[in-house]
């Protein structure tokens, strides 16, 4: 349905955002030797000789700027490093960093953000090599907007379209941590307990997974906005398979589960910034799981689902008590009233 104004839901990572991108921006897609805009993947991959140049860009806005477990600086580096890693490019060559600041932004906050950018660069081994700074008037933007872009070379590209019936779905750890931590802070809900963002660079973990699984790792995507539910829909749609998700097998921290119960928000649709979803051929699933679990960021990894030939494009949730369809998230989840 065409709308004549952009609204917040168009940035929430769900169906509304996808249709805006398809309706407006897809016309920019040009043919490339490799994976370009029309694939709507985490990034692009251009064939250069017998290797792939992988590149991606990401703008970051988050409210609040500082949240339990991280801040906008850490988020902006990890987001780009992870987008590269999800294409199979685990050795980032270089990042760019552009910042737009609101007049009056505290210098101390800016330095704190710079320090966490630096820290995340060290963790991921990704150097920042160029940047840009702009300032806008008070009220013209909300504090700070960060954009990062990244490039890397890869021997093989992993898309999010490679699932076949019988493949196993893995997640690399607990889901819902980032979004729930930010949401409870943003809405000042005053929930007690240790809700912390999981924001972290995943290239090291993905490197281990690819080393163990090789070509049998057939799909990867990081479940950011829209959460695990959104990623599974995308993988099911692009791969032309159905997916049965075994809900009791999905790792969720008790604090996140409790906050979700209170707010009426399903952790399956909540954003993550330090997790990946992998599609793996069944024969390699155990081996890849073991490799991920051996990595410090993957200790709680689990096999959570299976691709099926039935119901292509759809995701069925087995709750352990019954079964239902898992809907594709539409927009930003909002806490309910009663």
């Amino acid at each position, binding site marked *: *349905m065409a*709308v004549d*104004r952009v609204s917040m*839901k168009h940035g929430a990572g769900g*169906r*509304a955002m996808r249709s805006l991108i398809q309706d407006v921006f897809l016309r920019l897609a040009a043919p490339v030797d490799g994976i370009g805009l029309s694939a709507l993947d985490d990034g692009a991959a251009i064939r250069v000789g017998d290797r792939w140049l992988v590149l991606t860009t990401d703008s970051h806005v988050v409210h609040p700027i500082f949240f339990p477990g991280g801040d906008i600086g850490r988020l902006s580096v990890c987001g780009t490093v992870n987008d590269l890693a999800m294409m199979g490019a685990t050795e980032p060559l270089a990042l760019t960093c552009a910042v737009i600041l609101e007049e009056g932004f505290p210098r101390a906050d800016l330095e704190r953000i710079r320090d966490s950018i630096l820290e995340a660069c060290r963790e991921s081994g990704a150097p920042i090599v160029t940047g840009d700074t702009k300032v806008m008037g008070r009220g013209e933007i909300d504090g700070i907007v960060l954009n990062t872009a990244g490039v890397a070379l890869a021997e093989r590209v992993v898309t999010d379209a490679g699932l076949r019936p019988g493949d196993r779905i893995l997640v690399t750890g607990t889901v819902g941590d980032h979004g729930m931590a930010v949401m409870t802070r943003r*809405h*000042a*809900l005053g929930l007690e307990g240790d809700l912390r963002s999981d924001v972290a660079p995943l290239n090291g973990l993905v490197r281990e997974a690819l080393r163990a699984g090789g070509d049998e790792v057939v799909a990867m995507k990081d479940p950011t906005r829209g959460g695990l539910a959104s990623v599974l829909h995308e993988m099911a749609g692009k791969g032309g398979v159905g997916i049965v998700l075994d809900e009791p097998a999905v790792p969720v921290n*008790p604090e996140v*589960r*409790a906050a979700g*119960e209170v707010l*009426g928000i*399903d952790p399956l649709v909540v954003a993550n910034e330090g997790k990946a979803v992998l599609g793996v051929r069944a024969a390699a699933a155990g081996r890849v799981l073991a490799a991920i679990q051996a990595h410090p960021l993957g200790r709680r990894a689990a096999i959570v689902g299976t691709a099926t030939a*039935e*119901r292509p494009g759809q995701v*069925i*949730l*087995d*709750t*352990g*008590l*019954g*079964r*239902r*369809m*898992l*809907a594709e998230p*539409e*927009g930003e989840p*909002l*806490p*309910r*009233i*009663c």
Partner: protein
Amino acid sequence: MAGSLDELKFRDPVKARALADALRREVELVGRSPVSIMHVCGSHEQAIARFGLRAVFPPALDVIMGPGCPVCVTDTPEVDEAVALALQGVRVCTYGDMLRLPGTSRSLADAQAEGGRVEVVYSPVQAVELARRHPAEPVVFFASGFETTAVATAAVVLAGVPDNLSVLSSHKYVPAAMDLVADQEETAIEGFVAAGHAAAITGWGIFEPFAARTRTPVVVAGFEPLDVLAAVVELVRLLRLGRPEVVNCYPRCVSRDGNRPALEKLWRVFEVVPGNWRGIARIPRGNLELRPEWDRLNARRRFRIDTAAVGGAGRNVLAERCICGAIMSGLARPTGCALFGKECRPESPVGACMVSSEGSCRIWHVYGGPPDLRGVA
């Protein structure tokens, strides 16, 4: 800690299977099809849909959601009042679900986009905090919900609120919802599952006159999947035995007399008045309004609310095809609506049932569309 233990206790798949078996036996013993029962609470529909329970209900059992969403039954003129106040420059705060509820020409979200100051709060306490932060401005709390949230509004009112805060009540009264359905001539409903959280306040005794008058059994249920399954088994058993009784299947939270201090607070602040429920009818005891002694807090008394200014922007062709009223009355299903999941979706809702997270259309849609997966491998 207790919470996580409870969760395990009331989501045990083995017990769920045993209850599903018991339910199948009870429905077979009734020996008719369909056996139609109704719950009147969005949170029950949430539990049923969320856990995929319709996949284990026997085909002969029809579990229907009735008018159990206070946001959905909030009438267009009530939304118009809040919209008019926001456009008159009053700071309006309300629960998130109310934001996109359609008024005659605009929702509160539309009013916000036009420059009205509209804020989402999660409790009446946050409304008080908002008023304290803006002492020089009039602030109105557009209050919605059944007894459960009306008690919270009452508690805040009795604790004393800043002079600049008023209440615009669209609170609704649960027992009216069941009367409405039972008294419909077309109704096929043979028994009711009553909402455990509302009963925790009113007490289960409040349903006894209803059961006696309508010769319909009522079972009070909690919200975990095993609570719902156990209550449905008990309700079908009462039907089979022909016993129009009230049974409390939620004794860990609900007593016969309810929460007396909460009830005392509720009735000191609110009284039951007639009200229109969106798409359904005028309900004689449907609304909760501030008692006259609280006129100084009542936005309807304090402000001249010009709803004419936000009315009539031509006819809404889509809205005329919406069957929310029939759905809330239990006479139709979301999947029976031509707009469901097509023109009417959570991001562009046509009817109130798609707006609120307690609305049946929204719940069915959020939990994957037609909830019956009995045919799915």
